[in-house]
């Protein structure tokens, strides 16, 4: 009896909990929810909190309220130079009208992502098609992206009930043949630079060497000048000394110097003198009287 009663109470509690679980639901800060009654929208304006629904009649669909990502696959695009490039972009969006979003995507978020990816790629294609590589890479990326974002918002907000927060190009890759031409150009540029450096080195080297050679010549010729001046000064001093001494008796100088000269001039056996015996020297050779 007691046991039966308590069992019954426990069963009742469990059933109550089950019903509660089927009817009570919490909409979180991170969620958007729509309530459907037999497939048609009843309510979409849920703030975060606790709500109730009638089980089996109402169906609840929840969507992410946070900022989400559209990460599309890299797409081949032509630029204005008719060169292909692989463009990988992403977009950030947020559901702001969950009812419209539910209707547009038939409750499947992946549909929204696919649609957005297509639209983003179309817009990127249009924008990149009229720009060359340089403009795409280094040009007004910010302006370009802001324009695409704004443009996309106009349709996305009305059609999909989502707000596009941002569209960004992640990466732009060149196909192999284009890469190769870029590499060629880079190599050529480097070779130019290398040659320039070597030429500059040669130039600087030549300049330094020539300057050194010039200095050498200047130093040596200057030294020669000084040396000659010194020698001249020496010669002058010697001359004045000689003159001072010899001018005391020029005749005697002539005499004694001549003697020295004779002595210096004839001192080799190979020198041949033809002498006449009547010179002063042989005065006594023939005649002791010296007549």
């Amino acid at each position, binding site marked *: 009896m007691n046991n039966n009663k*308590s069992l019954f109470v426990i069963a009742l509690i469990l059933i109550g909990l089950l019903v509660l679980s089927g009817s009570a639901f919490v909409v979180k800060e*991170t969620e958007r929810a729509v309530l459907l009654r037999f497939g048609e929208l009843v309510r979409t304006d849920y703030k975060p909190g606790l709500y109730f629904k009638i089980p089996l009649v109402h169906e609840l669909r929840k969507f992410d309220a946070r900022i989400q990502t559209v990460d599309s696959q890299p797409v081949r695009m032509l630029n204005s130079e008719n060169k292909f490039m692989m463009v990988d972009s992403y977009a950030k969006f947020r559901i702001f009208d969950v009812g419209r979003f539910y209707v547009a995507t038939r409750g499947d978020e992946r549909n929204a992502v696919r649609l957005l990816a297509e639209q983003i790629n179309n817009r990127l294609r249009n924008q990149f098609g009229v720009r060359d590589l340089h403009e795409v890479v280094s040009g007004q990326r910010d302006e370009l992206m802001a324009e695409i974002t704004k443009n996309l918002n106009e349709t996305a907000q009305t059609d999909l009930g989502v707000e596009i927060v941002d569209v960004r190009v992640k*990466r732009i890759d060149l196909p192999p043949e284009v890469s190769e031409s870029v590499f060629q150009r880079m190599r050529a540029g480097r070779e130019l630079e290398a040659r320039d450096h070597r030429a500059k*080195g040669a130039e600087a*080297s030549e300049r330094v060497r020539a300057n050194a050679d010039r200095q050498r010549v200047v130093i040596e010729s200057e030294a020669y000048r000084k040396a000659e001046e010194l020698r001249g000064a020496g010669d002058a*001093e010697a001359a004045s000394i000689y003159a001072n001494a*010899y001018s005391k008796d020029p005749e005697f100088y002539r005499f004694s110097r001549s003697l020295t000269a004779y002595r210096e001039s004839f001192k*080799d056996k190979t020198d*041949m003198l033809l002498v006449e015996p009547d010179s002063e020297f042989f005065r006594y050779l023939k005649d002791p009287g010296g007549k």
Partner: protein
Amino acid sequence: MAWNEPGGNNKDPWGGGNRNNDGPPDLDELLRKMQQKLNGLFGGKPSDSQGGSGNGGSFPWSLVLIVLAVVYGLWGFYQVEANESAVVLRLGKYHSTESSGLHWNPPLIDHVTKVNMTEVRTERTTGQMLTEDASIVDVVLQVQWHIDDAESFVLRVADPLKSLQEATDSALRHVVGSQTLNGVISQNRTQVAADTQVRLQEYLDLYITGIRVDVVNLTDAKAPREVQDAFDDVVRAREDEVRLQNEAQAYANQVIPVARGQAQRMLEEAEAYKSRVVASARGEAARFTALLKEYQLAPGVTRERMYLETVQDVMSNTSKVMVDVEGGNNMMYLPLDKLGQGSGTSAAQRQQVSPQVVDEISQRVINQLRTEAANTRRSREVR
């Protein structure tokens, strides 16, 4: 229970987002002890005992409720570590962000997400990208970041980590795309990192990720492998440039001192010459002056003496041929070529040749003189 079994492993039906609500072990311990105590108070008694609860014999509702209430109460305890924050949703609505300590929130009503706020995490991105001058560069970038705003990190963005990766990729490529290749690989590396950091933070704030970027490091930026050779050659060329200059400088450093040395040598030699010339002039002058003094005392004799000495020296050191041509325009043949043969040849030859030649000459001269002259002529050859 349908959901949320006690023990923390929170499997509630409105799942979504990451959860990490494992209560710390000491809490489990506490819970178990409490249960044991309760069992000691109530559960140990036989069901048909009189007393205590008063409604003996009937099902102990109060006891069950008390147990449930205690279990529920204990279940709501959780601990937030010093480096964590806990974001609390009450019935799905943001309620508060709790800092470290022991907290209690009603289970099933509140939903708690803990995030580590101080751990600095690293995001690394690598790849080839295009620069402003349409070149390709290989870049490795490291981003260090931490969660700055737990509420945003948990509630505002679907996948904060993926958002960070994508934003990093995009920001880096944007910045690199507005720099020249040389700028990226050498001069402006810090600038690239700084610009990337600013831009990345902008994106992260726009996507409300709650992430704060601490440091952006451009750990590597170099030319692609395909053109590395050409780049290396530029480095080598720079070294060559320096080397050539150094060699030239070395040459200059060698040549100029040597020239200076030679210049000094020339000067010294000139000085030496000057000293020599002046000294010999002084010497000769002094000698002359001394001689002159004596000469003036006895001019005739001195002059005679000097003359004779000199001629004697000259005569004794040379070859002589005495020729007496008095009263004769007689033809005299002197084979001067023969006589002079000795000159220019070696001394040994001279010694061999000279006597014969001189003999011969002397002989001829003597013969000639004898045959021709009335008075006696002699020729003599002295060696």
